[in-house]
């Protein structure tokens, strides 16, 4: 629950099974999130956000955690489609990537990403980052109303 007593849900867009499992594990351990779903690619992510089958019953998430290096569509292309979609435009999207490549970071902010986080190789740091982002974006952050 956030400060407004609303349920907090995250959508993780990640094709790497290990990264997905480790991220979800850390999020669960932080114990702030009510629900977390994971999809494997950009296409699936848009299906989820458009509430198309099999995701008709899923409400819009509080946060989309988006990897860049995805099959088919890149994370940046997914972000662009979200921003160009009136219903999704104000969704909170945080990029989560193994790379801190300048061109990726700049492109992400040009597409109005809310934040860009680089996955630390150190496991302690990785877990800490996931815990903190869960608190920050799940509890403290006040998203715009139309994104709900």
């Amino acid at each position, binding site marked *: 629950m956030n400060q407004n007593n609303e349920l907090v849900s995250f959508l993780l867009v990640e*094709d*790497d099974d*290990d*990264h997905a*499992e*480790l991220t979800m*594990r850390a999020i669960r*351990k932080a114990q702030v999130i009510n629900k977390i779903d994971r999809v*494997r*690619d950009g296409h699936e992510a848009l299906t989820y956000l458009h509430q198309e089958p099999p995701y008709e019953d899923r409400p819009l998430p509080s946060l989309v955690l988006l990897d*860049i*290096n995805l*099959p*088919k*569509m*890149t994370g940046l292309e997914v972000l662009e489609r979200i921003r160009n979609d009136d219903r999704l435009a104000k969704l909170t999207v945080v990029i989560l*990537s*193994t*790379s*801190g*490549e300048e061109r990726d970071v700049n492109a992400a902010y040009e597409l109005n990403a809310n934040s860009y986080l680089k*996955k*630390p*190789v*150190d*496991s*302690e740091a*990785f*877990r800490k980052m996931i815990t903190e982002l869960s608190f920050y974006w799940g509890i403290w952050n006040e998203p715009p109303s139309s994104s709900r």
Partner: protein
Amino acid sequence: MVVEELKRFTGFDRVMFYQFGEGGSGTVLAEAREDHLPPYFGLNYPATDIPDNARNLYKKNLLRLVADVDAKPVRMIPAGLPYDLSEASLRAVSPFHIRYLQNMGVKASMSISVVQGGELAGLIACHHYQGSYPLSSVKRICCLYFGLVVSGQLQALQQSFITGELLRRQERAAIEIRELSRGRAILPILMKRAKHIMACFEADGMVFIDGDKDFSSGSTPSVEQCRFLMGRAAKTVSSPIQYSINIAADFGEAPDNGKSAGVMMLTFVEDSTLFFFRDEKVTSVRWAGRDEDKLAGDLTPRHSFEEWVETVRGTCETWSYVDLALANDFHSSLASFVLQQALMLDRLSKRLKATTAEVQQFAYTVSHDLKAPLVSVNGWIGAMEEDIEDGEFSNLPHAITRVRASVTRMNNLIEELLAYSRIGRVNTPAEEVSVDALVREIVTEMTPLLEEKSIAVQIEGQLPNIDGHPGEISRVFENLIGNAIKYGSGHEKPQIRIFAEPTRFGARFCVSDNGEGIDPQFQHRIFELFQRLDTKNEGSGVGLASVVKVAQLHDGKAWVESDIGAGASFWIELKNQRFEEHESK
């Protein structure tokens, strides 16, 4: 000898051999005269002395006799149309010619035309100063034949002189051309051989301008002025060889070194020109009387035959027929070489661009794909530590399996990446590869897999040969056929077709399947390194990137034609690979 002989035979007071030069003026080259007469030898006569229509008549009537300058012409009354007397040898001559002769004090004259290649090259002029001088028709015919023999002899002599000089200088030029075409770039050799090349062209200076590089040797105007000449020449004439014996007059700017006068320019490509310069040669011309004596527009022959000497400045020794022939040789041999150099440079810069792009992609790949397994390994180790701390052991075997899998994945990625980077780094020269044999071998090797998935393979016709490296071309077809098997088996009767179309410099090949096809919106990414369209199928994402890289090495390209449910046709266009493609490694 010719004039002496003719004087003896005809008995005229003076016999001269008169040669026409450039611009139509004439020079007395030989003379035989009575001792008391003033010498005309070496004198020049302006072109206007013999008007064009007179010249044409000289070509028609090879012999003209004016037996008596003072004879009164008899009028002929034509019965109908006026008679054309051009061909008549005893007709009266133009009153102007008579006046001209009278002005010189000549009483009788005879001219024999010397014709070369259809043009009036000279005249043998005979003058008599004491009364009329009729010559018998037999003697006249003899003189006519004499003229013909002289014409023929002269032409033969000149021809053999030109041929001899041409051969002699061509031999020397051939040495220089060989030297110049030997190296990778013309400029350094040009600098080394400057003296010899200039000698071939009998030039005093040489300049070579190639883009922003330049080189000068000997007596030449400044490079800036050469660039100006280049610009002017490019604007006015399209011919690759241009010459002038008077730069100031032809280009409107006097050579800024104060010495050069003539130029020969050989343009190879747009901004690559070789210049030869000749210094000014001040000449004195002895004119027999001033041309200016004549009033403008007046047809009357001039009165003054008094000698005056003119000093000609600003010109150089004429570029001869041999000079021009040599320039042509030089140009045609070197133009293709210079062009080849430019093409090679272009190709190298393309390769450099490709290499830079590859390095950038490599860095990107390292930051994305190679780091991912490291994050996993460390993540799982951290998770194990937490679980052990919490006394929770059930999850440990899973974590250990994931660590092993990540390490294996990391290793595979590195191997694939190395194999990918090795493409194009073969040190052996390109050879003719039988793609047909190679593809049939790959299909045979894959038969067990094809039978398992009941895929029919059809190779259409005989696939063409390509110059390249068998290992690299094999890799292309292993990848394309492997992909077709992996992704093309969705159809109930899966089929793979392999065929080719010849192109001008090689061929394009197609591996086509009737499988599930590829959504056009994702097609642009499938050729990128480490990109895969799905996470379920095996494969590293290096296969199609390798296909593209081989295509680039062959100056070609790779692409896909496909739609959802419509199968996929992967095309690769290969040009025959030249030896220099691998030379730079």
